[in-house]
């Protein structure tokens, strides 16, 4: 049998069902891997060995007594540190929450626990999910397992890196402008941002409420679909949650048939700023889809070039309000409370000390954009652009079943390379932001390595709202073909991590 840590989640489930291995063994293998390599990768902020093993033991007991189990019972997972976990630290990568232990579980966390999925620990992220490199974590960057000097994407770099480093077969991310998909792209893993409202946001610390979405991450399309099916579905605790049946993502991931589908290439995504090796792999994927019987058409989404600007008004505006609660009064860091200062001073000192530069930058931007006299020009205009982008999608989906593009303009860049240039950092998300603005589902899956640097390239698939199953169908078709072509998963080409 393959080394446990290199197995896919679906294979691990089969192995457990046939009695070859227990969840405790699987979980322990991953904990050992974390102990061996995470000093180099730094995918995890907290590891909960005891909690994970006890959940695993519970699953094993149920399995041996013949109780019915969920589709992923016993397969351990890395959880982005932005989801509230009862009794486990939840820092959002920020000093301001360094010692906060939530008294409640996020809805997704409850569903994971219910499904018997052991939570290995909490994964690193850019502070409050602001960033595309995980360099903005207050607790130090995560390193890309493909090249430890490079970024693993962001904000969910811990979740993507733990998959690529074989520290976990499953992970949970959140995606506000690409924080699941771009990390997946640059680490050679799979990540899905579901339809807005498809997965409950209750308990995910909000960055921008109207854009945030929790989603599944894994190393294969099928594993991602299985995890998707576990976490998705209506939740009355989240008013924006959609009360409808979860799209049949697992069936779609098993099908992988694009024969007769119409697939659109967005004219406005690509060209300038897109690395040649990224474009080359993308073009090959297009040809591959055509070979599989899909009809490829070029579509225009004329307002996409405005997406980044609109996004950087809406996101900071919402985040300036969402992050106001971090004031040192009820939870988290408190600075300057020596009895001599007013509550305003303590709030102000707490926030100045607790938030990092990127967070402060966006709070200031958003506060400004919402100010009286500027609201219409900034927030108001941005919302209009948002509507126009949604209309671009609507028109495109009248013509095609899904849209595709490169996920990120480049492969993983070097740690430190863009840290002092926020605009360059923001441009990483130029291809992923439109679906967040329109509330649509999107997937990134690996399509090969760029010739110039031998680093992974991701393909983005975009679908209409609540048609998340189409992502999995198309993704599975491409994945199957590429696996046959390569003879082994892309990640087998990643360098061995030295380990401790």
């Amino acid at each position: 049998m393959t080394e446990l840590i290199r197995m896919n989640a679906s294979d691990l489930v089969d192995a457990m069902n046939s009695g070859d291995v227990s969840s405790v063994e699987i979980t322990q293998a991953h904990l050992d891997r974390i102990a061996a390599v995470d000093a180099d990768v730094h995918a995890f902020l907290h590891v909960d060995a005891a909690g994970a093993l006890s959940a695993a033991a519970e699953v094993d007991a149920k399995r041996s007594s013949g109780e019915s189990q969920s589709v992923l019972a016993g397969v351990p997972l890395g959880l982005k540190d932005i989801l509230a976990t009862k009794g486990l630290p939840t820092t959002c990568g920020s000093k301001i929450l360094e010692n906060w232990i939530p008294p409640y579980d996020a809805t997704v966390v409850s569903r994971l626990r219910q499904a018997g999925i052991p939570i290995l620990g909490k994964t690193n992220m850019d502070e409050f999910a602001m960033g595309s490199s995980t360099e903005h974590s207050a607790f130090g960057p995560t390193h890309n397992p493909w090249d430890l000097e490079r970024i693993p994407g962001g904000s969910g770099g811990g979740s993507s890196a733990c998959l690529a480093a074989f520290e976990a077969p499953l992970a949970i991310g959140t995606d506000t402008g690409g924080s699941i998909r771009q990390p997946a792209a640059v680490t050679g893993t799979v990540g899905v941002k579901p339809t807005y409202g498809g997965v409950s946001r209750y308990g995910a610390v909000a960055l921008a409420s109207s854009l945030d979405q929790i989603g599944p991450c894994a190393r294969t399309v099928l594993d991602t679909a299985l995890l998707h099916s576990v976490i998705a579905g209506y939740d009355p605790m989240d008013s924006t949650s959609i009360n409808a049946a979860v799209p049949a993502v697992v069936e779609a991931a098993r099908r992988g048939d694009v024969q007769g589908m119409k697939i659109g290439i967005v004219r406005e995504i690509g060209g300038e700023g897109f690395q040649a090796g990224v474009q080359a792999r993308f073009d090959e994927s297009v040809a591959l889809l055509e070979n599989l019987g899909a009809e490829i058409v070029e579509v225009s989404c004329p307002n996409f070039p405005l997406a980044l600007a609109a996004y950087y008004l809406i996101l900071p505006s919402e985040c300036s309000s969402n992050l106001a609660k971090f004031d040192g009064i009820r939870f988290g860091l408190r600075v300057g409370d020596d009895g001599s200062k007013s509550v305003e001073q303590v709030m102000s000192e707490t926030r100045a000390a607790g938030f990092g530069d990127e967070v402060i930058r966006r709070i200031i931007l958003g506060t400004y954009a919402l100010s009286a006299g500027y609201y219409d020009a900034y927030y108001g205009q941005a919302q209009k652009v948002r509507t126009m982008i949604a209309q671009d999608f609507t028109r495109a989906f009248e013509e095609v079943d899904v849209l595709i593009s490169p996920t990120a303009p480049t492969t993983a860049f070097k740690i430190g390379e863009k840290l002092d240039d926020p605009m360059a950092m923001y441009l990483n998300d130029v291809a992923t932001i439109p679906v967040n603005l329109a509330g649509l589902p999107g997937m990134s899956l690996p399509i090969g390595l760029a010739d110039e640097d031998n680093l992974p390239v991701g393909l983005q698939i975009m679908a209409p709202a609540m048609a998340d199953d189409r992502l999995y169908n198309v993704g599975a078709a491409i994945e199957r073909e590429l696996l046959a072509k390569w003879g082994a998963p892309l990640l087998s080409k990643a360098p061995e991590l030295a380990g401790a």
Partner: protein
Amino acid sequence: MTEPTMKYSEAIEKFDPVMGLEVHVELGTKTKMFCGCSTEFGAEPNTQVCPVCLGLPGALPAVNHIGVESAIRIGLALNCEIATWCRFARKNYFYPDMPKNFQTSQYDEPIAFNGYLDVDIETEEGTKTFRVEIERAHMEEDTGKNTHLGGATGRIHGADYSLVDYNRAGIPLIEIVTKPIVGTGKYAPEVAKAYVSALREILRSLDVSDVKMEQGSMRCDVNLSLRPTPESPLGTRSETKNVNSLRSVERSVRYEVTRHAARLTAGQTVVQETRHWHEDTGVTTAGRPKSDADDYRYFPEPDLMPIAPSREWVEELRATLPENPAVRRTRLMTSWNLSELEMTNLMNAGVLELVEAAVNAGMSPDSARKWYTGELARVANERGVEVEEVGVGHDVLARIEALIADGGLNDKLARQVLEGVMAGEGSVDEVIAGRGLAVVSDDGPLLEAIDAALAADPEVAAKIASGKLQAAGAVVGAVMKATRGQADAARVRELLFEKLGVSE
């Protein structure tokens, strides 16, 4: 520090007052506006809280449907239009009693707007109806409650530290805002009071809130400005916060008119600021400066879906509205045979509901009215509570009335019985038994007492016998005294005249 004021009559001669009233009403829903926590008043601090109303990271709001329904019913009862589509908005500002540092409220899309409320006031020319136009009624959540400790004033300035109780945070509020109220002239204080009173009646009839001003479930902010003439542009306003009784609404308006007038007449400007009303001294003091440029950075609440009440639902709610209190007032006035003035007094005393309940339970309108506006109002006033809080139900009054009617009690004894009931000594009959309060109906002891009284004052017998019947009062008084008020005065009189051989 008391500020100079001008005599009210003088002030009103020189200036035209303009008011704006903002009333916050806590809805009587069982749970909070955006979470499932209890809204029960008086619980231990911070025991009715959860991640949502504490604003913990990750928590999300979910709208209380009953809260929305109540808001619509209030809007309809205030003759408002109901929005076909509206949203919540975030009002952003930092304050420790506000868990999220923004209040979930409504901004430019209130659920109800463009309404009015007609109120009656007594003027020199008789009862006049005054229309108060309503700008909007919108939904929002209440804040927590700060207690400032260690200072002399109980205010944040000078306090050593403050405690916050978040039990109140997230309780549904409806804020009802009037348009500028103009044209009241000298009756501004009366109009303000009558408006708040009428509003309270309506809210009570809708059964959406317990509207207890002293507990803060109904709070009134009074904006007031003066201008030289009704044609002049609006003057600078002050905003008197949390005026917590009907009487205070009237008094604070009156006070602010006299304070503004004094400043303006002295060539000073009125400072745009909030004012604190002091019930005890009857004055307001400066709070925080308030500018029109206060920037709350409102934007639509992205965590909640827009609310689009269907017209069918609105009409359904309209059809089930209770009788309008004004209509009801006319109906009751006729059926109880009251004058306008008597009815207004009843309304202003805030006891209409109580009287109606008593009448429905079989009491006569006159005696119910007499009890609630008389003895019970006096006790409530003495204790500084509302009449309904005195703790005397109409069952108690009905029993007392029945005993008076068949001679078992007289008025004086009845008051003592009431006192006993309020003191928790039990039911009416238990108090009578316990205190031995029954009217002495046996003639024997009465005749003895009459004899004793006549013996003590021999001249009085002669006076009565000679036809000066008014002199009988002294004897009756003496007998009442001797029987500790337990005699039936009419019977004493009868026995006395019989004894002296005179007739009335």
